[in-house]
């Protein structure tokens, strides 16, 4: 009975849709209490419904994204995407789902069936767990943990083991190679990810994600939002974080472990039917989770970008930013070729890690020199000068060289 007055509280204007994401949970709790069942059952039922809401929303977003990705990639490549199933191909994910479900589940005879079965499950579970700590709205974090960021990285670490299991259990060359490359890529790119996030923790003073978002409220100069991206160290750390996002999610241009022309499907080669669909879903859910984290840390989470736009519900802003970030990832996928494994590793260890290490003293300087003009004045040279030195070195050593083959025209 306590839920109903909360919903209809007079302090909340009727057109403010902030309560919408919480609605299923509140409804179920109210129903259980109405039926006279004990309090703890209501809580558990509410939590279960909240979990199902999160998973349902993001599974639907995954289905939609698979279609939008295909159509956007197609339009960039001067062709139409899927447009046969339903108007504009909107039922294509349904057709894909049916196809995946009805395919035969083939397990190689020499494979270890238990690990083979466990691996796709252990790829989806960390992604769903990670989705639970991200603040989607002003009053809607599914699990507001005090150590939310640490929890996120801890469950992300489980993904690497499951990729290894997938590669090992299918006793075959391509999965083994793919698993090796995937693990080395994920381990290498986790470092810039965590170092970039560390700067945010230093400045915010807390690991709790709702707190970090709340501290990015307010506007400088009246119209520039106080997001972490609009600070000198935040810009660098944000770019590093988003590049590491693409690499962690195994997306182009870092999708060597699963590129078809390189290694068939990498660690997913020997999987068919629903297990393959689970891998696919785990990859995309992980992408949502990690870009959600990036938005929380650097793009202000559910904060509105301009002062007058507070009437739009906060979760709308979050999903708008998520769509923008995913669109940029799609754009990048449509544009760039795949990088080789040695180029990948070289980029992570020689470029991203030094740059992300630089953001740590820059963030500390910025925080302690006052966040205004003096902070900018001190931090900008600290970041710009090494960057310039790095780029000059890269230009000299790694620029494309002119090669002339004297004997080619004899």
């Amino acid at each position, binding site marked *: 009975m306590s839920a109903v007055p909360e919903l209809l509280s007079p302090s909340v204007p009727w057109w403010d849709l902030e309560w919408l994401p919480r609605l299923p949970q509140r409804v179920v709790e109210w129903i259980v209490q109405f039926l006279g069942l004990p309090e703890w059952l209501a809580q558990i039922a509410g939590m279960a419904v909240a979990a199902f809401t999160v998973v349902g929303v993001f599974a639907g977003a995954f289905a939609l994204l698979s279609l939008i990705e295909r159509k956007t990639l197609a339009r960039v490549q001067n062709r139409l995407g899927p447009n046969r199933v339903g108007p504009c191909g909107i039922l294509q994910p349904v057709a894909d789902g049916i196809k995946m479900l009805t395919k035969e589940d083939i397990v190689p005879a020499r494979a270890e069936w238990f690990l083979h079965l466990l691996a796709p499950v252990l790829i989806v579970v960390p992604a769903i767990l990670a989705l639970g700590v991200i603040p989607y709205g002003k009053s809607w974090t599914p699990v507001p943990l*005090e150590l939310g960021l640490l929890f996120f990285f801890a*469950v992300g*670490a*489980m993904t690497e*083991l499951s990729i290894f299991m997938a590669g*090992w259990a299918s006793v075959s060359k391509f999965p083994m190679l793919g698993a090796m490359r995937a693990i080395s890529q994920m381990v290498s790119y986790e470092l810039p990810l965590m170092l970039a996030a560390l700067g945010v923790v230093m400045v915010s003073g807390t690991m709790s994600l709702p707190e970090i978002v709340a501290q990015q409220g307010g506007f400088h100069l009246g119209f520039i939002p106080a997001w972490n991206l609009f600070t000198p160290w935040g810009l660098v750390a944000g770019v590093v974080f988003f590049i590491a996002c693409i690499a962690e999610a195994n997306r182009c241009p870092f999708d060597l472990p699963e590129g078809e022309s390189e290694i068939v499907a990498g660690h997913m080669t020997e999987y068919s039917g629903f297990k393959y669909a689970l891998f696919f879903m785990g990859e995309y859910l992980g992408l949502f989770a990690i870009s959600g984290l990036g938005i929380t840390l650097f793009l202000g989470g559910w904060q509105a970008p301009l002062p007058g736009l507070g009437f739009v519900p906060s979760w709308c802003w979050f999903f708008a930013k998520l769509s923008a970030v995913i669109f940029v990832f799609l754009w990048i996928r449509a544009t760039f070729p795949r990088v080789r494994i040695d180029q990948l590793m070289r980029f992570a260890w020689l470029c991203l890690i030094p740059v992300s290490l630089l953001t740590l003293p820059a963030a500390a300087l910025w925080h302690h020199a006052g966040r205004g003009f003096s902070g900018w004045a001190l931090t900008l040279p600290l970041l710009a000068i090494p960057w310039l030195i790095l780029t000059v070195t890269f230009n000299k050593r790694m620029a494309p060289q002119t090669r002339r083959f004297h004997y080619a025209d004899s």
Partner: protein
Amino acid sequence: MILYLPILLLILLSALGAVWLAKPVHAALCMALSLALTAVLYLALGAHFIGLVQFMVYVGAVAVLIVFALLMTRRGEESSEISARPRSWALGLACAFPAAAMLVTAAIQGAALPKSPPSEPQVSLSDLGRLLFTDYAPAVLVVALVLTAVLIGAALFAREPQKDTLR
């Protein structure tokens, strides 16, 4: 106490599996499982930070390192070398005796467990951080130096002889 028994049992079982299983990969994955369950135990005891760090460091880094080493050297399949264990019971008991003695002494002399885990951690995260960088800073620096030395040594060992690169 009742709540912790299943977790402890599972930890023991997976640790036994890590030692007894024939294939190295299975043993490594069992070890990862026992480390993950230890993290779960820490979380159940209310030590959130340690539990999550245990998960991130042990399962996410150490276990991955071990399986990666198995993968790179392709020793994961061979079970013949591992199952050639020394048959001497006396040697095993002699190795296990000091550890068992320490555990039993600690159990007898240690303080009684509180009835329920505290809701708030007794030592907060900022306290831990401050302690690490003030009182325990020398220890942290020494560990960092040791890790750096290990990394450099490993890189040197793993390096192939430099070939003349054409410029």
